[in-house]
């Protein structure tokens, strides 16, 4: 029995693992059987772990010549019907964007892990950051839908890696898993038993071959992919295409396919959205935070509550599409919202958009140091007492 068997079946098995190891184990548990990557701090442990685990689980690991190639190879493997993932950080995430856009446009399932480190450019490779939130949403050219998940603990990295594959396969979309260097290299003792939820799998074409249209969707809005070798012989392209998959610039055909593409996640928001609201029911001040900053904010909420201040925490777990209704509900009683984050204001911009007109303040740190609970508590206290 190998490490993953133990991880997946050993219900009582507790292990001390890092966030990056939890990600690799989650990928195997989700059915990932292909990984292509390129070494980059602080995500390399994911590649190292999967280079060991994949061949033990009938999968393939390959270290490609660059970040662009590793994103391409992942999409190539997924075109072949195999669940596939890559992991990167900082400048590597920038290099992924070209082919990430291809995966979004041609609707190829894949999982991209981005361990956020300080930027811009080479920045601070060994220091945490949360400055790739907007790049995860808008990093490739053109309009496109995408899903991004922001786990907040080592155990949640395991769970959200599994969910990333479920969402990617079911909704034929790239899914970005975003967490920071602290969570990546933080080790925690956690249970590695996967949740009992059934895996969401990709649907493959069946039925009469002559009727198959690779980009004609049923009511779900999600077209069914052809499995190469099964006789459907379809075409995929990064050019705008019609239902038949072939390039077209016919305005009606382009508008029809892109309207479906841009709107395809909306009917499935119940399955995609995920967030946590803590002590928000009566809150005067709601803190909105993700990742390791949400962990500090959780403690800050406790500190404020001990002083009798009504402070709550709202934590997006699915960051994109942004959980607008849940944020509005969580801030229904709030007089002010505080957004602590390790960047110059990316999450705050989104919160301001959703809560237009509300009092929203940011606590921004981009020095490479995490934000600590007392800082958040002090700021929230001042806002609650104002």
């Amino acid at each position: 029995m190998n490490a993953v068997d133990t991880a997946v079946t050993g219900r009582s098995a507790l292990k001390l693992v890092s966030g990056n190891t939890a990600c690799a184990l989650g990928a195997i548990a989700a059915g990932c059987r292909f990984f292509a990557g390129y070494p980059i701090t602080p995500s390399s442990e994911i590649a190292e772990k999967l280079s060991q685990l994949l061949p033990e689980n009938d999968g393939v690991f390959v270290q490609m010549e660059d970040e662009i190639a590793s994103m391409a190879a992942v999409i190539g493997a997924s075109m072949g019907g195999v669940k596939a993932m890559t992991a990167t950080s900082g400048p590597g995430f920038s290099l992924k964007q070209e082919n990430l856009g291809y995966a979004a446009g041609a609707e190829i399932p894949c999982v991209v892990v981005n361990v956020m480190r300080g930027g811009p450019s080479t920045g601070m490779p060994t220091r945490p950051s949360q400055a790739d939130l907007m790049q995860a949403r808008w990093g490739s050219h053109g309009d496109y839908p995408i899903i991004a998940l922001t786990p907040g603990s080592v155990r949640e990295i395991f769970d959200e890696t599994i969910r990333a594959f479920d969402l990617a396969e079911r909704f034929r979309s790239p899914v970005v898993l975003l967490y920071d260097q602290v969570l990546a290299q933080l080790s925690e003792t956690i249970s590695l038993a996967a949740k009992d939820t059934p895996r969401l799998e990709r649907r493959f074409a069946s039925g009469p071959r002559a009727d198959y249209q690779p980009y004609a969707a049923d009511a779900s809005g999600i077209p069914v992919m052809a499995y190469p070798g099964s006789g459907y012989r379809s075409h995929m392209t990064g050019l705008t295409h019609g239902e038949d998959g072939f390039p077209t610039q016919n305005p009606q055909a382009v508008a029809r396919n892109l309207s479906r593409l841009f709107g395809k996640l909306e009917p499935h928001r119940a399955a995609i959205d995920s967030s946590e609201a803590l002590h928000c029911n009566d809150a005067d001040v709601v803190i909105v935070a993700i990742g390791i900053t949400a962990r500090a904010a959780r403690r800050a909420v406790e500190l404020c509550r001990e002083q009798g201040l009504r402070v709550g925490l709202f934590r997006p777990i699915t960051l994109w599409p942004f959980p607008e209704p849940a944020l509005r509900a969580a801030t229904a009683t709030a007089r002010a919202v505080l957004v602590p984050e390790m960047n110059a204001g990316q999450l705050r911009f989104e919160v301001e958009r959703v809560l237009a007109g509300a009092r929203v303040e940011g606590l921004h740190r981009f020095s490479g140091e995490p934000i600590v609970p007392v800082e958040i508590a002090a700021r929230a206290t001042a806002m609650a007492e104002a």
Partner: protein
Amino acid sequence: MFIDSAADFDIKTYLRMEMMPHFLCPGCGHGIALRALLWAVHELGIDKDRLAVVSGIGCAGRLSAYIDANTFHVTHGRPLAFATGLALARPDLSVVVITGDGDCLAIGGNHLIHACRRNLKITCLMLNNEVYGMTGGQVSPTTSETRLTTTTPSGNSEPHFDACALAAAAGAGFVGREVTHHVPKLKELIKAGLEHPGFAFVEVLSDCTEIFGRKNDLGSSPEMIMRQTSALRPTAYRDTVDMPFRANSLPTGILAKNARPEYGAAYRRAAARKEAGR
């Protein structure tokens, strides 16, 4: 005899005829290369359902859409990287890459040298027409010196790549070159590439009559093809070690071949050995 051997080959059974008329210019050599590829596929009895064609961006990149197989038209310069993932994940498929000189040697140059080094079973067909045709005729890494293009209005001053020498130096298991004038020979070369158990690089000297030919006053397509053909030197690679950058005498045929282990099989063997050693 070549005509006889073509008798049972009906190209239409390998084409998506609903995609016709194709979009290539009159006189373009790419259609001939496509015919040679499909003829080779036919003679080897490769099942269309098991054939995967990955192509990049440019005139050559558009060819995959015409082939009745599993076809993937990907990003500029990246078809070899996409194909690497596909071939590693699905060793049961026959994976062919169609690329052009700009796609393969400029923006995709890094992927080419590493694909050659890795030696995964992929057949890469590089259609060399010496120019970026799709974007209107800019200079490419294979444009001959002194040639006029839209970005070398005074004539090209850069030396051009010998793509086959590059592929061989990077370790490709199979390297060959042919012209579109010799269709049966080209078909045989592609067949040998498809049969090679590792990475096979086949350069097809194509012609861009409408843009490159017109700009350089090279005449009609037959004239361009005959000029190309008269400059050939079909010899073994070992006689041509001084070939890179020599403009007027190109070796054709199989130029390099080695028996290095195929990457996918080697990877799986190593994994099995490690598993057995536990």
